[in-house]
């Protein structure tokens, strides 16, 4: 059986395949296999017992909930930022555009301590909420803010290219037919950007459930209240409970697998609906 499906005159197939397979086996396949083995060794009942510990369940619920809220926030503001960057002219637009990638470039620990300091009760931003009895740092609200920060670029960078590709013809047709701008946005533009928006939202949701560095400083990490799922893993590791840690890790992988699966299904449904219309 030949590996190459179609023969090629270009050189370097063996070399590039060799480097790739060697590195990916060592870096990805082997470690993944080990984790599956480690979780399998503990057996289904112990696995179940670990992931149904009240502390673990509370963390799962917290991580999913806060990631979901961060996703909703960024679907709104991310789309707005992308829209403003593509459609309008304003001073320092290039600078603003470059700034959107800051959360990708800034190390998460730096983000974490900066946000924790800002939103602490005596911080620049936290002090404005303190008189109303609203605490942000060391509560789930702080987790939400950190997740909004780290995942903003996912939505903007997913929606922006789609908006750039749109020519004004459909919108003009809609306007000619008497649609208001809002109706045009809802009925013409939104369906166009929806697939990209879904991809961006799904990717960011998966990323947000696993986010660690930017969250742990502002979260306060109070068990059952503001302890996120990745922190459960590091906690178990500190107690040398390696199997428990791998059970939770496997559970996290299953969650992100389900998210990506749901995402693919909805993409597929969307494209089918678009196909039926055309």
């Amino acid at each position, binding site marked *: 059986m030949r590996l190459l*499906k179609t023969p090629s005159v270009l050189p370097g197939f063996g070399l590039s395949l060799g480097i790739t397979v060697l590195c990916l086996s060592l870096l990805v396949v082997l470690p993944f296999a080990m984790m599956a083995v480690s979780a399998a060794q503990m057996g289904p009942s112990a696995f179940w017992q670990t992931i149904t510990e009240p502390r673990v369940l509370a963390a799962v619920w917290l991580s999913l909930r806060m990631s979901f809220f961060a996703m909703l926030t960024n679907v709104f503001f991310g789309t707005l930022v992308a829209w*403003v960057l593509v459609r309008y002219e304003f001073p320092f637009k290039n600078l603003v555009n470059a700034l959107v990638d800051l959360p990708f470039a*800034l190390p998460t620990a730096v983000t974490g301590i900066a946000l924790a300091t800002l939103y602490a009760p005596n911080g620049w931003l936290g002090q404005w909420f303190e008189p109303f009895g609203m605490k942000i740092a060391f509560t789930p609200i702080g987790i939400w803010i950190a997740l909004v920060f780290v995942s903003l670029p996912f939505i903007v960078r997913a929606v922006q290219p789609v908006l750039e590709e749109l020519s004004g013809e459909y919108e003009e047709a809609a306007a000619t037919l008497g649609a208001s701008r809002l109706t045009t946005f809802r009925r013409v533009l939104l369906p166009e950007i929806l697939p990209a928006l879904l991809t961006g939202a799904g990717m960011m949701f998966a990323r947000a459930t696993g986010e660690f560095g930017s969250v742990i400083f502002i979260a306060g990490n109070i068990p059952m209240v503001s302890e996120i799922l990745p922190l459960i893993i590091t906690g178990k590791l500190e107690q040398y409970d390696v199997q428990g840690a791998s059970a939770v890790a496997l559970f996290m992988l299953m969650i992100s697998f389900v998210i990506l699966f749901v995402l693919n299904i909805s993409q597929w449904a969307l494209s089918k609906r678009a196909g039926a219309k055309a």
Partner: protein
Amino acid sequence: MSMKTNPNITEPRALQWLLIGVALLFLLLMLVVPLAAVFFEALKGGWDLYVASLVDAEAKSAIRLTLITAAIVVPVNAILGVAMAWLLTRFDFRGKQMLTTLLDLPFSVSPVVAGLMFVLLFGAHTAFGGWLESQGIQVIFAIPGIILATLFVTFPFVARELIPLMQSQGDSEEQAALILGASGWQMFWRVTLPNIKWALIYGIILTNARSMGEFGAVSVVSGHIRGETNTVPLLVEILYNEYQFVGAFALSSILALLAIATLVLQDIVNRIQARKLAAAERKEA
């Protein structure tokens, strides 16, 4: 009429400014204020204290470890990235889809889970890790583990930058070089590399920024041995938890400067690429 001025398909100026205002206010509060806070907190105690916390022995050893890690991770991942991009864009082979899926994995795996995988593989309690330990090689809670975890977290960046570009460029120039008698390596150095130069540079910049700033994965494998296995982000955490805020933010400010430099370089590379693309389109037209 351009899309931005056609009144039928744009918003009244007032509404435009309202939307711009809301978007900019959001970015200001969410992104600019935290960035400014890093520098403000770092310089709060004055310039002398700032410099003193950077030349502190522990800080120096963390900076050295971070530089060592980047010096190993960046070249390895640059070579791996070029090899993967070449493989995935120039050949059609069995298992290609699976490789593409693996390429996206570090993006969807929590950094903590990534670190844990290496603990499970190389930890002293495992068969393999135990054997290595008996040979005098320690991976977990030592520098090799930090390098491995960083390699894992950053390996897709170069390939992710190169693949779309190499796909759109196609292989006709490379085939032409071969027909004209170039050897494989001549083709690579004279045709492929010049074509992908800017995307490669950008991928390397991104890999470098991420390898110097990685926290979650490295934190799990490092063991936090002071003066030995702390990278800059890990030392930031330790100092912060010990209420040494000036020290924590001083080190953070270096990482923040690195992030700003990354964004500036990214902007420059994007502009060069856009200009080249426009020039190529003019030539075709």
